[in-house]
């Protein structure tokens, strides 16, 4: 029998700020070792408060946090040693040089320079910052600063990496390359917890997910089960020829976006065969088809709306 190791266990976690704001109302959360986990929620839902408590930046009101079965209250040093954090806001000393920032951070984790210097060099190369290693951090571009924060979080080889909206404000190309990088380090065994506003990002990267809203976990499941709950899907069909004027699709909810583009909405149990059969009968050929935008977004909105309705 194999025992699953929990990278993170949160029990009955509450946080009430001094202004009376109840940011967390007793959440429970668990993340298995090796997972790529998404923590989603609208602004002010409690995501950053949760991460702040895990990383000791925020003092909890009550509850229990364990990192790799190590109690954060009883053994803070051991528990913190597992963690790497990429925060939402840039929080390095802008006057320090890029490599210094990495070596200094490694030093705080007890890594001597003989180990941290080669490790910093390795990360700087991997993240495309090698040429900037002697540049003060404040002189970097926004994307480079973001990559510097990822390098800094990884310099001590953490077992649990927490990323709080790491791709906010990053261009698409860089975002994709960061996804590839994160997938690689997850494949190498690093457990990753990600909060993001880009739901597409969570859908693409993460295997498990929790949705938090108004200080409560409203969903905590695996991504596949969650997406399976969608009762309808929307597809965009790109047609080879313009649609005829008398075109119609019986029993299918559709919308003509332009002369040769159709948007169709299907119930989950309905197959696409009926649609293709009707199009074929009318002499219409489909050049390509894609799933519209983001399926997770629809679910997310549904869950959050449901959470609002129960208040």
């Amino acid at each position: 029998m194999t025992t699953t190791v929990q990278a993170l266990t949160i029990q009955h976690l509450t946080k009430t700020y001094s202004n009376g704001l109840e940011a967390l109302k007793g959440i429970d959360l668990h993340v298995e070792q090796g997972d790529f986990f998404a923590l989603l929620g609208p602004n002010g839902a409690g995501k950053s408060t949760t991460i702040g408590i895990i990383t000791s930046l925020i003092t909890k009101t009550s509850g229990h946090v364990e990192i790799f079965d190590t109690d954060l209250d009883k053994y803070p040093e051991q528990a913190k040693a597992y963690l790497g954090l990429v925060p939402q806001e840039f929080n390095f000393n802008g006057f320090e040089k890029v490599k210094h920032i990495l070596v200094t951070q490694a030093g705080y984790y007890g890594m001597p320079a003989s180990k941290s210097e080669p490790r910093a060099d390795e990360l700087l190369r991997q993240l495309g910052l090698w040429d900037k290693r002697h540049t003060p951090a404040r002189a970097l571009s926004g994307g480079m600063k973001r990559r510097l924060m990822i390098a800094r979080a990884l310099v001590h080889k953490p077992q649990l990496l927490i990323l709080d909206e790491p791709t906010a404000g990053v261009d698409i190309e860089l975002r994709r390359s960061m996804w590839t990088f994160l997938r690689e380090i997850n494949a190498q065994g690093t457990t990753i917890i990600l909060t993001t506003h880009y739901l597409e990002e969570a859908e693409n990267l993460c295997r498990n997910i929790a949705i938090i809203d108004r200080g409560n976990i409203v969903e905590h499941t695996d991504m596949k089960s969650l997406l399976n709950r969608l009762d309808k899907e929307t597809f965009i069909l790109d047609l080879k020829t313009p649609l005829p004027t008398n075109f119609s699709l019986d029993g299918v909810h559709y919308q003509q976006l332009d002369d040769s583009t159709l948007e169709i909405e299907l119930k989950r149990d309905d197959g696409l065969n009926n649609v293709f059969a009707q199009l074929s009968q009318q002499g219409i050929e489909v050049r390509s088809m894609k799933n519209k935008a983001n399926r997770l977004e629809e679910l997310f909105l549904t869950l959050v709306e449901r959470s609002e309705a129960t208040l």
Partner: protein
Amino acid sequence: MSNKHAHHWVALHTLVTREIRRFIRIWPQTLLPPAITMTLYFIIFGNLIGSRIGNMGGFSYMEYIVPGIIMMAVINNAYANVASSFYSAKFQSHIEELIVAPVPNYLILAGYVAGGTARGLCVGLIVTIVSLFFTSLAIQHLWITISMVILSAVMFALGGFINAIYANSFDEISIIPTFILTPLTYLGGVFYSISLLPEFWQQVSLLNPILYMVNAFRFGMLGVSDIPVTAAFSIILVCIIGLTAFALYLLNKGTGIRH
């Protein structure tokens, strides 16, 4: 050395190195100004005015004020270094690098205080070298001189740390130096012996901790003091213990650094 202690040692070394590197990197703001200011003190108070004052405590006025001026520079710079460095770390949020890391609070405190002490001593050494252009120095009690200057730097570095914990703006790290530290320093026997004061003001002066530091340091250098040196050491040690306990209490509570 156990693994834990080895990690702590590396963390402390990293923090102290970073602090020292910081004040050396910005030497025109940290090391140069006290050298210029204290040179002016030596010229104006020591040479121009001092030549008309004559002897004090059996020494020329220049010789008499040198220990006080060195101590004044040490105190101000030890305090300012920690106050500005720790507050800047809060302001730029890079204090989070330390809070997230497995660095115990006592090491954070020790690292910043060591950095402040290093700057205080560095400036003290610069001012001492400058003073050699104006007078000759003969140290009477070497260990009293060295231990007093280190303990004073530690004490005011701790004060700067506590100031920075509470500060919410850069203005708030200059209020205490301007309105408390500077007056106490000037009234702490840097430029005069309290024996010149009326009895009442002599008693009031004894409430000023800087008086004890300046006099004990002066005793180390010149062999004269307005107060018993043992009292000075006792008071400073009590202050250091009290300030350390209070700073650790604030850090453990997360005051000013955690929500």
